[in-house]
């Protein structure tokens, strides 16, 4: 079983009776507390959770839905896996609190296909909640009904994107939708839907228990609280760590005993590559944002190989819907192959970086918009090294 090294807010003692307290109070107070806490989505995009909930809570609709995004598909992340198995109760509590806050009666956990082995465990906890009166009709004696079921994904990375996830839940091909309208307005089955990451939802009972003020005191001005990191690569102590936002990358590396670090890929394949010179930067929405994936490379690594691996990933995992992402990623991959064979002119390389910028602004969803990140950052920081090696 994975363990959480050095918990801060995710310390078990911090959950207290946040769940009960929330449900016994007014729905709007939960929304206000979450908004006050400054909690931002932990799934990568960092949208303020309180604002999302407020939009859903104020939407007038006969039905609303809560969806927990447990698709955890970003290469290099495995922190939701821990939460799903070790903090299952707390996750369900977070979802129920969300349902109560926004006026939803149903919730879904969209579970990554590879996590099928957790299914019986999660369903067991759901059953236990039913027996304890925490799910079902009249929760805590309130006029509040809520139910949760688990749905399995089928291994497409893009289905972690919230609107593709909803398509997939509806039984369609997992392709991102046009936005606006956003899921909080027109989501699952056309109804207002809150989609939140596992970590975001698990934070909720903590915030309700300890209060927004307590939470705000951790982290930085625009990034309150802590972040769970999945750290892998050339380090002595890989694993899952919790750090306050604002932690310097170099301090994080110290913590996991990284040696001879050449570069750190932050935010997974769709994140950015930080070279040695920039290790003093910090992890926060202000500086280097991350959904939690940290991959460390030491000086023995060939950056072009790493890049090739990422580009192969995107060429395959693009949903194939829109031109810049579908064809663009292939062109970037072809470019990497050309460099490998010493056949890419500097002019064409510049053209490809330019293409990457087009993909960032013109792709339909976050996948295409972030897929050129590694190409652009690795080529910017390691271009000379790569060209020297391959020409």
């Amino acid at each position, binding site marked *: 079983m994975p363990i959480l090294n050095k918990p801060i807010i995710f310390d078990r003692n911090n959950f207290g009776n946040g769940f009960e307290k929330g449900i016994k109070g007014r729905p709007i107070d939960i929304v206000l507390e979450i908004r006050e806490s400054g909690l931002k989505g932990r799934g990568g995009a960092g949208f303020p959770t309180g604002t999302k909930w407020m939009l859903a809570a104020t939407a007038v609709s006969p039905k609303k839905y809560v969806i927990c995004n447990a698709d955890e598909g970003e290469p290099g992340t495995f922190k939701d896996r821990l939460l799903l198995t070790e903090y299952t109760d707390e996750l369900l509590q977070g979802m129920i609190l969300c349902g109560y806050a926004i006026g939803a009666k149903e919730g879904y956990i969209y579970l990554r296909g590879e996590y099928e082995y957790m299914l019986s465990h999660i369903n067991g906890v759901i059953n236990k909640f039913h027996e304890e009166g925490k799910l079902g009709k009249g929760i805590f004696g309130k006029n509040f009904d809520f139910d949760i079921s688990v749905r399995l994904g089928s291994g497409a990375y893009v289905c972690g994107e919230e609107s593709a996830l909803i398509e997939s839940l509806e039984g369609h091909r997992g392709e991102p939708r*046009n936005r606006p*309208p956003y899921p909080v307005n027109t989501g699952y089955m056309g109804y207002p839907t809150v989609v939140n990451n596992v970590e975001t939802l698990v934070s909720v009972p903590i915030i309700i228990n300890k209060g927004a003020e307590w939470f705000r005191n951790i982290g930085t001005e625009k990034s309150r609280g802590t972040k769970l990191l999945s750290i892998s690569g050339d380090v002595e102590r890989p694993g899952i760590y919790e750090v306050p936002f604002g932690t310097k990358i170099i301090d994080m590396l110290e913590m996991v005993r990284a040696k001879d670090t050449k570069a750190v890929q932050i935010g997974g394949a769709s994140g950015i590559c930080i070279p040695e010179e920039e290790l003093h930067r910090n992890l926060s929405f202000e500086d280097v944002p991350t959904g939690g994936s940290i991959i460390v490379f030491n000086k023995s690594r060939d950056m072009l190989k790493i890049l090739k691996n990422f580009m192969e990933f995107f*060429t395959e995992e693009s*949903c194939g819907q829109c031109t*810049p992402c579908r064809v663009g990623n292939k062109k970037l991959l072809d470019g990497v192959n050309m460099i490998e064979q010493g056949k890419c002119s500097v002019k064409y390389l510049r053209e490809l970086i330019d293409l990457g910028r*087009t993909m960032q602004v013109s792709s*339909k969803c976050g996948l295409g918009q972030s897929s050129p990140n590694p190409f652009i950052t690795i080529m910017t920081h390691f271009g000379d090294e790569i060209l020297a090696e391959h020409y």
Partner: protein
Amino acid sequence: MTDSSFSTRIPTAQQSIKIDKGSAHEIGGLVDIEINGKQFQVPFGTYILDACKQFDFHIPTLCYHDDLCIAGVCRVCVVEVEGMRTLQSACTYPITNSIKIKTTSEKVRKSRRHIIDLLLSDHYGECYSCVRNNNCELQSLAKEHGVDFYRFGHVQNPHYEVDNSSYSVVRDMNKCVLCRRCVRTCIDLQEVGCLEALNRGYETKITTFMDKPLAEVICINCGQCINRCPTGALRANDPSDAIWDAIDNPKKHVVIQTAPSPRAAIGEEFGLAPGRSLTRELNTALRMIGFDRVFDTNFTADLTIMEEGTELLLRLKSALVDKDPNVKLPQFTSCSPGWVKFIEHFYPDYLDYLSTAKSPQQMFGAVLKTFYAQETGVDPADIVTVAVMPCSAKKFECNRPEMNDSGFKDVDYGLTTRELAQMIKEAGINLPDLPKTGFDEPFGEASGAGLIFGATGGVMEAALRTAYELVTGREVPFENLNITPCRGMDGVKEASIKLENVKPEWSFLEGIDLKFMIAHGTANAKIVMDRLVAGELNDVHFIEIMGCPGGCIGGGGQPIPTSSEIRAARAKAIYDEDAGLPLRKSHENQHVNYLYQKFLTEGPCSHLSHKLLHTHYTKRGSYIA
């Protein structure tokens, strides 16, 4: 938006979830916007693309099509919205607050150019060897954006085999740019759903159920996807080489029938604005090309009315007089082969509701190789029958194994409007300039009732003009015989006409409200069929269904592009032509009466007419053919 709107098979990603403009209007009223520094006001919820069109800012598009739900996948229409990190696709973005839009900034131009370069890098083929040369949206985009080299390379070899399996539609996926218009057309407009995207990422392709050839799946051959394909990836199966061969062969007697819809649209292929029929110019052109005789399909449209109308009256009699519980009412029209294949696939248990009358095209073929051969003394083995149709499904229809009742293949070739235009151009003829000539005997001039078959509601109107008069002895009670409830582009129309003071032989119809319905496009056909299945149409007597939106004038063989305005203009051309004809009722067509006197002497729905002019249908699967 409710659950039920998702019960269709339209993938939601391919739908635009439209903001309801009516109610939105109440909330926000008008919104101030700025486009390229100029101020405008638009109703809350207007799409950026529509706003730009309204104020004459050109925005290039590719996956967008007026007839279809919005996809937002090609990204060619991206614009800059001030304050947003990314560009926005103009076709998908509803304006709900005051925004500033830039349509030609550097970022926009660069992105569009890159996107077009990417599309071209993945599009195999050379423009000069493509049916869509000079009428290709990708080609136009490349020209508009000054593409003069392949920035990101170009496909050197085809990756896909061309699918020639269907009599009607040819798929060349090497030219596909994945705009998904065909997918949306097939699912959304036609409710067929035989095309869908498969695989992910760069491997994505449009394909059929289990990747089977088109001929083996539930394609209804309507060709609506062809009309909306921006490139040459979809085209009709072109028989013109074989037709040229027949013309060049002195032993062959090559005759051609022309349907009204191609005549109303073919001018578009020669640069005319939509809405001008070139019926008689076309006769001249066909003779110049070398056809031995030129006939009017409307002749058999009139014949269809006689057969199908008689069939309806007989069914009514069985139901009302003989109280036969097995008689199937309402009777459905059967002249649209796309619709016929649709019902064969999706409602195979309801085939008995279809009229057994063949379509005008097929009736003509059967008459040509029997009666006409007899009259003229030409050996039917030497007669080659060509039909100019607005339709790709007609190609499949003429190849149905049951369509050999004359002892020969009744109709040898179905030729689309587009293909005929190509033959005429190849012969160096500028069609609109030609003198007018008439049709050949022994079928001569037909009625306006046959003519209006081309527009949705036309068959019903023609049938009513005849049936009402037959039963009551009076003309239909509409000014100038224009039965207006049959006209217009509503998806499903419903009306009735009261039969009073009927002739003695029709006394069982006295006082009956003859209820009829009209639907066009198979999505609307599905609405009607689902109501039939639910038992809601027990009091309806006659239903006209056309497989294509707008009816035949919007057929899959018609000139490209298509839009509701273009279809309306073509329909108007047909109705105007009808209004100007001396003969406007099928039963007054003297050539049809002559045929019944000389050949089908036992009259409509008799033994011989059943053999030659009626057919039967085949139950088909709902996944594969």
